[in-house]
């Protein structure tokens, strides 16, 4: 029975893999903990379901859902850059806005997608096909992102997330890049939502609750697996998808064990918390030894391999101070 459920778990994992790639772009590339996703995944599903119910072609419905997701990212981006609201709060505000918007789009708490029709792109009634089609989607997405983040514009976005001070000094428009990154990310998340609605046959106002945790879990699992294999960006993205699949296989396993699945979200959150804590504690422990040598190492010695970002007692660039990644402006740093 567990193996019977595997194709379903894998196709769900692939769909959430698309979502996790979106999370990867904000969380890893932009260093921006974006909570918009809990809302934008539902927006994607709602837009897609409502349009399809109105007889719109499934592909067109997906396209509109993707655009809606990008707009959600734009709103968060504007909150953060133009209005100076901290990253986490910007995401939460948009998430809240989307809750109302999603209800308005659907006119009720959920909308059915007629998945018996031949016009559905993916459906759980045919998991085998769904897996194949999802591989197609992911190949295009991973390929596209790999290309984009290798361009001048894409490198600018990576630099923005990695070191905003340096980016500004090199003439990079940090605010614009954050907005673009958020739009790409949420477009992907909405795509996942649209496909998920088609796959499960309905969009539901609660379908995005806790999505960020599933996305982060997939990112973390993926990173743990591929980090030793290759630093290649495409491989990392593939790892994130793999993380999504593993998450859903474990999920299926828990169901098979007949454990209480209501604990699953709590369990996921705790696992994510532990994994996020590991680098921080590791750094803190290492730091005691490397502190003295921080800036002293001579020009011809290759020292300090341990701290990659601006080291310190803070959990830099990791989730514990995500709230601090405040927008540019203000008094700068001296």
């Amino acid at each position: 029975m567990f193996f019977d459920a595997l194709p379903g778990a894998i196709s769900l994992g692939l769909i959430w893999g698309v979502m996790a790639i979106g999370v990867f772009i904000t969380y890893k590339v932009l260093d921006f903990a974006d909570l918009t996703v809990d809302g934008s995944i539902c927006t994607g599903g709602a837009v897609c379901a409502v349009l399809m119910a109105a007889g719109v072609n499934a592909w067109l419905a997906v396209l509109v859902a993707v655009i809606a997701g990008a707009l959600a990212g734009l709103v968060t981006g504007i909150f953060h850059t133009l209005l100076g609201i901290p990253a986490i709060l910007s995401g939460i505000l948009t998430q809240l806005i989307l809750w109302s918007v999603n209800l308005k789009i659907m006119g009720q708490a959920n909308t059915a997608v007629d998945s018996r029709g031949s016009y559905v792109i993916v459906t759980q009634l045919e998991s085998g096909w769904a897996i194949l089609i999802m591989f197609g989607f992911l190949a295009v997405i991973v390929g596209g992102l790999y290309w984009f983040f290798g361009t001048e514009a894409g490198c600018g976005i990576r630099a923005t997330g990695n070191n905003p001070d340096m980016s500004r000094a090199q003439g990079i428009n940090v605010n614009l890049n954050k907005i673009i990154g958020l739009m790409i990310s949420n477009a992907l998340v909405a795509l996942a939502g649209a496909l998920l609605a088609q796959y499960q046959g309905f969009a539901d106002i609660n379908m995005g609750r806790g999505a960020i945790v599933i996305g982060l879990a997939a990112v973390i699992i993926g990173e743990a697996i591929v980090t030793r294999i290759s630093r290649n960006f495409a491989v990392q993205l593939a790892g994130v998808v793999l993380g999504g699949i593993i998450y859903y296989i474990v999920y299926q396993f828990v169901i098979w064990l007949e454990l209480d699945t209501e604990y699953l979200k709590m369990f996921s959150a705790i696992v994510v918390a532990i994994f996020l804590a590991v680098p921080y504690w590791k750094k803190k422990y290492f730091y005691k030894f490397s502190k003295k040598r921080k800036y002293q190492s001579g020009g011809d010695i290759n020292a300090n391999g341990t701290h990659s970002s601006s080291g310190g007692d803070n959990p830099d660039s990791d989730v514990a101070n995500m709230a601090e990644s405040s927008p540019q402006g203000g008094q700068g740093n001296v």
Partner: protein
Amino acid sequence: MSEKVILDLKDICKTFNRGSVNEKVALKNLSLTVNEGDFITVIGGNGAGKSTLMNAICGTFPVDSGRIILGGADVTRLPEYKRAKYLGRVFQDPMMGTSPNMEIEENLALAYRRGKVRSLMPGITRKEREFYREQLSRLGLGLENRMTAKVGLLSGGQRQSLTLLMATLKKPELLLLDEHTAALDPKTAAKVLGFTEEIAAENNLTTVMITHNMMDAIRCGNRLIMMQEGRVIYDVCGEEKKALKVEDLLQRFRESGGEINDRMVLS
């Protein structure tokens, strides 16, 4: 030498936390003209406003009043990233000038595109790589053999040298150095400073360098300014500057009511 003006600061004022108990006047009606080819060293006590001056030029924050003319253009209201077109910068903190998770060559490629619209063309090309390899080999740190290594793996001195190279890869109108050797050990600092002078001389770069080391301040460049409480209190160039002694500077400093600290005297 032609006296083309690169930077013209007119009556710059900057107060931090205005109206609060932490109010701090950092720049007081500061005016300064920098000519093409000038290499100016800037000294002054802690909190004199040196970094604030540099950040005001860069646009890290808006100034309260005054005008900033850079390369003939009024940039007073231009955001930081747009001013970058004219400026090469090296920060005091070696961590600040480079992108740690990106490769050495990717960092250079970012810098090479300073002031350019970032398009959907490749972020780095094969031809550039050769150019970067050449430039890196001049540093004498062996970085030319590690071009795809992440910058986060480099030591402070290596990163500072790389930042310097990045700041000058695309020739800036003005090179700004804020105590860029202060965080390095003496041997590395000397090396980076030597490379700074070499690059500046070779490209005839107009340079403003903040330093705490008075001997360096006297030895390097053709002009020296001393700051105190947000003002330029001493501005000397040419032969007169060359003839300066550390004692002269300390004397001036004391006269203006500044406190001497060890860092300024010891090299």
